């Protein structure tokens, strides 16, 4: 099982190419507010995460994920299920 900081670093690495504003990425960074991602960017990013971890992040689940910490939790759960 991947530990939390390792998962955070991996996801942070996936966020960076989409982090056009150069926002500092921490657990509480929000996708809509801080990173200012529109729906198209969200879709591209979700596809990246899904393909990197070979998982599905349903739109129902996406609706509950607002910040990076929540994404770390969700992906951890999906990859250890």
């Amino acid at each position, binding site marked *: 099982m991947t530990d939390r900081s390792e998962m955070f670093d991996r996801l942070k690495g996936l966020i960076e190419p989409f982090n056009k504003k150069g926002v500092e990425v921490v657990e509480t960074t929000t996708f809509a507010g801080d990173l200012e991602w529109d729906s198209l960017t969200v*879709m591209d990013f979700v596809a990246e995460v899904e393909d990197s971890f070979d998982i599905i992040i*349903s*739109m129902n689940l996406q609706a509950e994920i607002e910040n990076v910490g929540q994404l770390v939790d969700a992906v951890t759960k999906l990859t250890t299920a």
Partner: protein
Amino acid sequence: MTDLFSKFDALIAQREGLLATGVKDPFSLVMEEVKSPTVAVVNGKETILLGTYNYMGMTFDDDVIAAGKQALDEFGAGTTGSRVLNGTFQGHKECEDALKEFYGMDHAMVFSTGYQANLGIISTIAGKGDYIILDIDSHASIYDGCKMGDAEIVAFRHNDVDALEKRLKRLPADAGKLVVLEGVYSMLGDVAPLKEMIRVSKEAGAMVLVDEAHSMGFIGENGRGVAEEQGVLDDVDFVIGTFSKSVGTVGGFCVSNHPKFEIMRLVCRPYVFTASLPPAVVACSAASIRKLMHNSNKRAHLWENSRNLHQGLRDLGFQLGTPNAQSAIIAVVMPDLEKGAAMWAALLENGLYVNLARPPATPAGMTLLRCSLCAEHSSDQVADILNRFERAGKAVGII
């Protein structure tokens, strides 16, 4: 007190900003007179209609109008009831019979709008624990159907067969799966690779629903849509369609060969808990659907119009949504909303109506001037349309 309308402030400000630049409001246009499927009077001016989805020009067809008048006389103005109570008249059955014949399918169910057809079928057949896999650029009625139901929603990149296949493979093998596709996507007018998408869906054990709203009547040998054109209609479990485009009236439907399909009439809430279509509407629709079965000359002319408009706009230097004419929708890409609204207004001043489409309805945040052709547009009208585009485009500085 918190004003519940404060959530709309950003949109209100954007709209006011746009109107302050002096353009007419693109979203409150009134057709004062409608002279034919291709000409109306707007702001007192005779205007060519190039944004109505009235693909086959059936709105003023003599037989269609005669059928409607007769039904109005014989069955009255409305049904005042649900399809499952007092709202199914002879005309509703005749309309469903016409659809079954048109598609060569066993079952047909007529809804009061196309929106309700997607809302009802999708929310009802995919339940808790099931998965709906849909194209990210799906129509609002598809998304709303998903939101109304209890299934898990999985989106894939627009028209990307690999992305669809990968996601299907990651889902539990024994879970119920519904793949939702459209034949023609209405914003750019591009066609889906249904053949490949349906193949990978079937391999994954999924049922397939295809919305053929923008292809009925003129794509495919019998006008049954993109699935027919690509030779895969037999593998489609549910076809969703509308009367408000090629058929020329209003209403929606689902056709299917599923042996248990008729149960939908009892469990589908947007079918049960609303009044059925008025007698005149179903009579017009049935007459129109029957005429659409035999219309190869009109279909050929519509394709000719679409190709000529696409080629002509490209030659003038406009940026278009598709590299070639794939349907009767030609989308002209605008640099931004302000220029798009200015161009829209300039076209209207030149006596030409098109749709102004903007986010969130459009993909990739684009502003589009969406043109939809009609089989009743003459070749001269298409040439005239191109002249008006040239004048307006130069006036606004887009070409």
